[in-house]
């Protein structure tokens, strides 16, 4: 087993860690940094609960090695609110009751944030394409679509 020193920026903060080669980014976030907002729902790229932004792009953190993020930028759900103010999407998720058990919510927010960054006014099909890999067993997804559209109408995620 090899251990690797890495330098990674997480939610704007520089972190220096030593990670074993076989540690996933998901394990690093949750077990090493106690950033437990990112969830483990399958460890197999299927559920999307572990979705984070890697250099601005959403990825399944369960399918990325921690050592691979050396020198890169990671954003997790904990990094979405700025200076204590919720992002437009976070606020909209609350207002539309797009949250039930909340386990899918961090991944949903990350995927939605990435969507609005590349497409500020997505139609319903674009939202579906972007969130296809984020499973939710509670909400039936409708409120999540509404919340995203609401933010899009208001001019994009803050």
């Amino acid at each position, binding site marked *: 087993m090899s251990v690797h020193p890495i330098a990674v920026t997480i939610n704007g903060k520089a972190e220096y860690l030593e990670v074993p080669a076989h540690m996933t980014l998901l394990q690093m976030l*949750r077990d090493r940094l*106690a*950033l*437990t*907002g*990112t*969830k*483990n*729902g*399958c*460890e*197999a790229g*299927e*559920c999307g*609960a572990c979705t984070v932004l890697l250099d601005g792009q959403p990825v399944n953190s369960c399918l990325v090695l921690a050592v691979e993020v050396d020198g890169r930028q990671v954003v*997790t*759900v*904990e990094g*979405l*609110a700025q200076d204590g103010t*919720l992002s437009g999407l*976070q606020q909209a*998720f*609350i*207002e539309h*009751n797009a*949250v*039930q*058990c*909340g*386990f*899918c*919510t*961090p991944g949903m*927010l990350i995927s939605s944030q990435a969507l609005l960054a590349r497409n500020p006014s997505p139609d319903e099909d674009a*939202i*579906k*394409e972007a*969130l*296809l*890999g*984020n*499973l*939710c*067993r*509670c*909400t*039936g*997804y*409708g*409120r*999540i*679509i509404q919340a995203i559209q609401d933010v899009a109408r208001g001019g994009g995620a803050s």
Partner: protein
Amino acid sequence: MSGLSTVGKSVLRIDAHDKVTGAAVYADDLQFGPGLYYGRLVRSPHAHALIIKVDASRALALPGVKAVVTGRDTPTRIGLYLKDRTIFALDRARMVGDPVAGVVATSEEIAEEAARLVEVKYEELPAVFDPVVAIQPDAPLIHPDLGEYEVVPFIFPQPGTNISEHFKLRRGDVEAAWPRCAAIIEGTFRLPPIQHVPIEPHVAVALWELSGQVSLWTCSQSPFAQRDLIAQSLGIPHGNLRVIAPYVGGGFGGKAGVSMEAAAVAMARAVKGHPVKLRMTREEEFICTTARQSLVANIMIGCDDQANLLAMEVAYYFGGGSSNEYGVNIARAAGYSCTGPYLVPNVKGDSYCVYTNTPIGSAMRGFGMPEIHWGIEQIMDQLAEKVAMDPAEFRRRNCVKTGRTILTGMEMPAIDLVACIDKVTQAIQWEKRPPASAPHKKRGKGLAIMWKAPAMPPNPGSSAMVRFNEDATVNVEIGAQDLGQGAFTVLAQIAAETLGVPYEWVRISVPVDTKYSPYEWQTVASRITWSVGNAVRAAAGDARQKILAVVAEHWHEDPADLDIRDGAVVSFKSEREQPLQNMVVYGLPNDDFEGWKGGPVVGSGKFMPTYVTNLDFETGQGTRAVVHYTVGAQAVDLEVDTETGQVEVLKIASAYDVGKAINPDLVLTQIEGGAVHGLSSAYEAIRLDAQGRPLNANLVDYRIATIADIPREIHGDIVETPLEDGPWGARGVGEHVMVQTAPAIANALYDALGVRFSELPLSAEKIFMALHGS
């Protein structure tokens, strides 16, 4: 009822802020520091086998391994209604995945490696997977000791067979009624086992301290039931076992009762002083936690030429899996509700729970009702067609109505199912049948109705405490859980309304912790708004009375002239006003400060239904079988691609009679989420090979609805016929919202294609093949 300030308003969820920021703590998020150990389970690769020998020596030799626990360490049986299993398999494995041993190590990785080193010698036995095969006299016996198991008085196992429960319902005379029927439809309907698939897999962390104090942190719908069952099984005084239940990432029944949590506690006992974390992988979640039972239903229903239902005969065979400790009560619930939401004068019903060598069947959203409605609701459509009546009209005529006697002899409590039918037929434009969008597509509409009672022992209790803080914010203590359904929000609304304080002043004291939280049976059966709602109302009412008594004394007025409005005591008589701040903790000084009165305000309350009666063993008849029923209707509009068999659901319209919507928008979110869950369930199945091994224990091959699969439109309506003993008339709706979706889809498919599907799951392949012949 006017003048409500919080109840009936769609206030925002009390837990939403935590959940959008990642601050909400779930069981796997708790931090235990470097002393944390990890467990992995050794599982049977055989569906049915005797365990000859477990040799852990190689596993124990691995550095980092701390203990290996086997069935010998946990010989005492455990179970909710029927104590039919041990925490680790003792002498026999009854399904693929049955836990045979548990390994504790300093990391999950080492525990996993060690688990692979535990050598288990099995002697394979013939296995049985289908409940109808399992009831045959020559079927392999899965629980030869069934007669020795402890069982609650209302469940009737049949030792020497695989039948763990047989519920009989006899009403009127079906034999005499059949000749009078103008139309009779008979069918056999099958449903596979399916899984809850909460996005959060099961996690438990247990700590057995040297003092004998035991703590269990777990994602749980049932902290108190878990305390009770685990304490009994492992011989822990109830007062020493503390179950702490943080946020739950979806339950749907899968986190009710006890599943893998007990193993975590048994493993922690082997390494006292160290917390042990046990978590299920997604693959284990599918087959090693619990599942919805399979069902084979034989149903025959007849009506006269005026479309009045006359007779119904059913036999339900639930494939309960390797343990039926919880599932027995599903068969019972299916038995006493076996007609579905219909008035049928002559009924013969037999409902069986049957052991099979498959994943453990247990509570799942709907608790037997989705299973039985699948067949009933299709036959009702067929009967309507036979007597040439519109299916909606047929249902309006025959459905249960307030005050009418239902199958168990009980009088139907107040509901309005006809209003639900009216709402959904209107929303779906029932009378219109628009054409499909393309020549190769066919379009159809379907309707289905449902009922469901909370299925539970006759006397499940709820309790609540209300404590005021100096600034008059209130802590409400409950033992109920929020699984996402919104319980904490609704209970806070009930407390605020009763106390006369703003909703924003209420805090729910969570996580639920059996050491501090008041008793709650379980968060199941759609009973929380109703039962805990009543308890919170009682506790808040108690606190309110205490406050009013102090202020009345202070003002020399009659408490009856006082009220609490918006956080202050007001008098209608003297128009005086006393803010709650400070006085709810420090009390009020007597005139001239000659002493004080009052003091910290604590209210307590409880609720327990006391009126449910026994049902006759031979007939299932009794005065009051259940506390109440929630009813509803759904209508579906869909389109089928006849060249592929793929279905697009264009719209689902739902309406439920919730008595009183304490939070209307939260009711709608249940209705919407339930419609998609119901749609998804029609396509789901746990698939096993001929040896009982899983074929699709992952989210790629066990597909649940994604955002791309949802109907184009999801419509919800709320009907409010107050329930006699509900808070402001409220009754539950969390489970009902998916009960009849699958048969509504089947009825719409028939409308579109003229083909009936009696077996779930549906699939594009099955639909295509049915259309084009095999």
